[in-house]
């Protein structure tokens, strides 16, 4: 399941989406809104999104992970709009027959989300300033190999 939502992410619902009698392992990752970044204090985050493309990119990532690690199930939920401190901004849950595949797939999915899915966060700082976050320390993946499973 792929879901982009302005509502609170319920971790138990994300877990339930991937639990299966066929699975021997379930891994759930939650990304949460951090209060301090390099000593600066955040009030909240806002997320912007290119909706249709973000959904299709997430679906492609999910399908690639399902195939590469032979997952039993995979669920990715990402928040949009305003997200308060400590709240869940992204949830990735995967299930598989054995734990190695679930750990590896979950980590790979989060890495890819941060590289290729058109979602952006804006920091709202305590001094009233707002900054869109556009990380530039990594070169973009070459045009058509955005899904490269190692």
């Amino acid at each position, binding site marked *: 399941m792929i879901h982009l939502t302005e509502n609170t992410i319920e971790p138990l619902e994300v877990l339930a989406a991937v639990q299966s009698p066929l699975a021997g392992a379930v891994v759930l990752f939650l990304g949460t809104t951090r209060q301090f970044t390099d000593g600066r204090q955040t009030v909240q985050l806002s997320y912007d999104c290119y909706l249709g493309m*973000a959904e299709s990119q997430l679906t492609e990532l999910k399908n690639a992970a399902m195939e590469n690690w032979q997952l039993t199930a995979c669920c990715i939920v990402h928040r949009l709009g305003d997200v308060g401190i400590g709240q869940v901004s992204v949830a990735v849950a995967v299930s598989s027959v054995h734990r190695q595949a679930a750990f590896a797939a979950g980590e790979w999915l989060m890495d890819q989300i941060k590289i290729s899915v058109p979602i952006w*966060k804006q920091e709202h700082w305590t001094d009233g300033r707002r900054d869109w976050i556009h990380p*530039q320390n990594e070169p973009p993946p070459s045009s058509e190999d955005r899904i490269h499973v190692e």
Partner: protein
Amino acid sequence: MKQTVKMFAGARDAVDCREIEMSLPEGATVGQLRELLHLQYPQLRQWPTFRIAVDQRYVADDFILLGKEELAYIPPVSGG
């Protein structure tokens, strides 16, 4: 040919618009569009690693535009 380019996040703020209209020569490539964007909107040069999405997919610079595609300027992403 004229084509609109959707803008997001910091890039939207930089041009103060959700969409910008670009005039492109017939048969222009995505690479030409990239160059023209930075010529006409120097404030976008702060994201040298931006990508262009055509019909909601990343494409190579040699992709030839026909004039009917949905185009988007994708500054470096920061989901998660």
